[in-house]
C-alpha cells in the first residue's frame, strides 16, 4: 500500500467526516427530542419536561457547535483535496450543498439564538416555534446532504458537457435519485436511534447514581419507547436500502456479503474472513439461501459474486464486509435492548432494573458505532468510484503533493484530538451530572430522593426487598 496523495486524501476525508458525522447524527434526533419535551411542557406544565429540556439543550448547543466546526473543514477539502471532483461534478451537486446552507443551516443556526437565549423574552409559544424550526432545519439539512451523497451512489439526471464536466439535466432526478429516499429514511432513523441510545444511557446512569430520579425516569422511558419503535423500523429500512443498493451497486452488496461466486442460494455469512488475493472468504459460517432471500425475495435467486466484476471495479472487501457486520450487530443489539426495555416497563420494573440500566449505559455509544460502520460500508463499498460508475476516485483527487496532504492530516489529527476530546469530555461531565431538579437531596443514605415518583420507586423497592 503506497501512501500517495490519493490514499492520504481519502484518509483525511474519512477522518474528518468520521468526526463530523457523529455530531449531526446526534443533533438531528436531539432537536426533535427537545421539540417533543417543550411541547409536552407547554401542554402539561410539568416541571420535569422543562428540567429535561434545559439539561439536553446545553448538550445540543455544544454538539451543534462541534458539528458546524467539523463540517466547515469538510467543505474546504472539496476544494483542496478533491478539486478535480469539484470541477467535474460541481454543477450537479454544488447547488445541493448551497440549498443545504440556505434552507437548512441558516434556519437552524438563526433560530438557535432564540432557543438558547430567548425563552423569557419571546414567551413560551414563540420559543416552541423556534425549537420546532431548529428541529425541522436539522431534518432539511439531512435531506440535502443525503441527496448529494446518494447522487454519488446512484447518479441520475445529468449529462456530460462539451468540456467533459457533468451538468444537471433534471434536478428532480438529481435530488430524488434512486437511492435517495430510502437512504434519507435510513439516516434519519439512525439519527433518532443514536439519540435514543444516548438519552437512555445517560438517564440510566443518573438513575444508577440516584440523581434527578423523576427526570431520569421520564427520559429513560422516552428513550426506551423510541428504541423499541425505531430499531425494528430501522432494520426494515436497512433491508430496503440493501435491495436498492443491489439493483444499482451489485459489487458493493457482494462485498458486504462476502460473496465471490455467482450462484443461486447465496448465503448470509455470520462470520468470515474475506481474502482478496485468494478471492475467497475463509472460515465462512453462514445460512445458505438467506442472502438470496433477503436481496431478491427468493432463496433460489441467482446473485452475482465479486468474481463477476473486473478486479479494478471491485471495492475493498474486508473493510466493507466487517463494517457492514458491525452495523448490523449494533442494530440487532438495539432491537434487543428495545424489547428488553418494553418487557421491564410492562412489568413496572423499569425504574429499578439495575442490570438493564447498566446494559443501557454500556450501549449508549452503540448508535454512533452503527452510524460510523454503516457510513464506512456505504462509502468504501462505493469504491473505486467517487461517482458510482462514472468518475473513479483516482481521477477525482487534486494534483497535490503527498507531503502536503500528510502535513494537513497530521494537523487535523492533533487539533481534533484536543478540541473534540475536550468537547466530548465536557458533554460527558454534563451527562454524568444529570438534569437540575426540584427534588430535595437525601439527608442520609437510606432516604430516597424527594420527588413523589422517586419516593414511589423507593417504596416499591423497599417492599420487594
Amino acid at each position: 500500500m503506497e501512501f500517495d496523495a490519493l490514499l492520504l486524501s481519502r484518509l483525511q476525508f474519512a477522518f474528518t467526516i468520521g468526526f463530523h458525522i457523529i455530531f449531526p447524527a446526534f443533533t438531528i434526533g436531539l432537536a426533535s427530542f427537545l421539540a417533543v419535551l417543550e411541547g409536552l411542557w407547554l401542554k402539561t406544565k410539568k416541571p420535569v419536561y422543562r428540567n429535561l429540556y434545559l439539561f439536553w439543550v446545553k448538550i445540543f448547543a455544544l454538539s451543534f457547535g462541534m458539528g458546524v466546526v467539523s463540517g466547515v473543514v469538510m467543505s474546504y477539502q472539496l476544494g483542496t483535496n478533491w478539486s478535480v471532483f469539484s470541477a467535474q461534478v460541481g454543477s450537479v451537486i454544488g447547488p445541493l450543498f448551497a440549498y443545504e446552507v440556505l434552507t437548512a443551516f441558516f434556519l437552524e443556526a438563526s433560530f438557535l439564538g432564540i432557543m438558547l437565549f430567548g425563552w423569557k423574552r419571546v414567551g413560551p409559544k414563540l420559543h416552541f416555534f423556534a425549537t420546532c424550526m431548529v428541529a425541522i432545519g436539522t431534518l432539511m439539512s439531512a435531506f440535502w446532504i443525503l441527496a448529494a451523497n446518494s447522487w454519488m451512489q446512484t447518479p441520475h439526471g445529468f449529462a456530460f458537457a462539451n468540456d467533459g464536466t457533468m451538468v444537471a439535466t433534471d434536478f428532480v432526478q438529481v435530488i430524488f435519485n434512486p437511492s435517495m429516499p430510502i437512504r434519507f429514511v435510513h439516516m434519519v432513523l439512525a439519527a433518532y436511534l443514536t439519540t435514543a441510545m444516548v438519552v437512555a444511557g445517560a438517564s440510566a446512569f443518573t438513575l444508577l447514581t440516584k440523581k434527578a430520579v423523576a427526570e431520569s425516569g421520564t427520559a429513560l422511558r422516552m428513550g426506551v419507547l423510541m428504541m423499541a419503535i425505531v430499531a425494528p423500523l430501522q432494520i426494515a429500512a436497512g433491508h430496503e436500502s440493501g435491495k436498492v443498493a443491489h439493483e444499482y451497486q451489485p459489487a458493493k452488496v457482494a462485498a458486504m456479503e462476502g460473496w465471490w461466486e455467482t450462484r443461486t442460494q447465496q448465503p448470509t455469512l455470520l462470520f468470515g474472513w474475506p481474502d482478496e488475493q485468494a478471492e475467497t472468504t475463509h472460515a465462512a459460517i453462514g445460512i445458505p439461501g438467506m442472502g438470496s432471500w433477503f436481496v431478491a425475495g427468493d432463496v433460489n435467486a441467482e446473485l452475482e459474486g465479486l468474481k463477476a466484476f473486473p478486479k479494478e471495479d471491485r471495492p475493498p472487501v474486508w473493510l466493507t464486509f466487517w463494517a457492514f457486520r458491525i452495523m448490523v450487530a449494533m442494530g440487532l443489539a438495539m432491537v434487543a435492548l428495545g424489547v428488553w426495555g418494553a418487557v421491564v416497563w410492562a412489568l413496572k420494573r423499569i425504574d429499578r432494573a439495575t442490570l438493564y440500566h447498566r446494559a443501557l449505559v454500556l450501549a449508549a455509544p452503540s448508535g454512533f458505532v452503527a452510524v460510523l460502520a454503516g457510513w464506512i460500508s456505504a462509502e468504501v463499498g462505493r469504491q473505486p468510484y467517487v461517482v458510482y460508475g462514472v468518475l473513479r476516485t483516482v481521477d477525482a483527487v487534486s494534483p497535490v503533493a503527498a507531503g502536503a496532504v500528510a502535513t494537513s492530516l497530521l494537523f487535523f489529527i492533533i487539533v481534533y484530538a484536543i478540541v473534540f476530546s475536550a468537547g466530548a469530555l465536557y458533554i460527558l461531565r454534563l451527562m454524568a451530572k444529570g438534569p437540575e431538579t426540584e427534588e430535595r437531596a437525601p439527608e442520609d443514605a437510606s432516604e430516597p430522593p424527594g420527588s413523589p415518583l422517586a419516593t414511589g420507586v423507593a417504596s416499591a423497592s423497599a417492599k420487594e426487598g
Partner: protein
Amino acid sequence: MKPPTIEGPPEPGDPKRPLGESLLWFAALWVGGLVAVAAVAYALRALIV
C-alpha cells in the same frame, strides 16, 4: 447570583410581556442569529477567496 446563560421559561409570577414586545425580541434574536451566521460565513469565505 449570575443568571444562567441558557434562559429558562418565564416563572409563574413573572409579568407577561406584551405580544408586540415578544415579537420584537423574536425578530431581533432571529436577525441576530442570521447576521452572526452570515458574518462567520463571509469571514471564512474571505480567508480562501
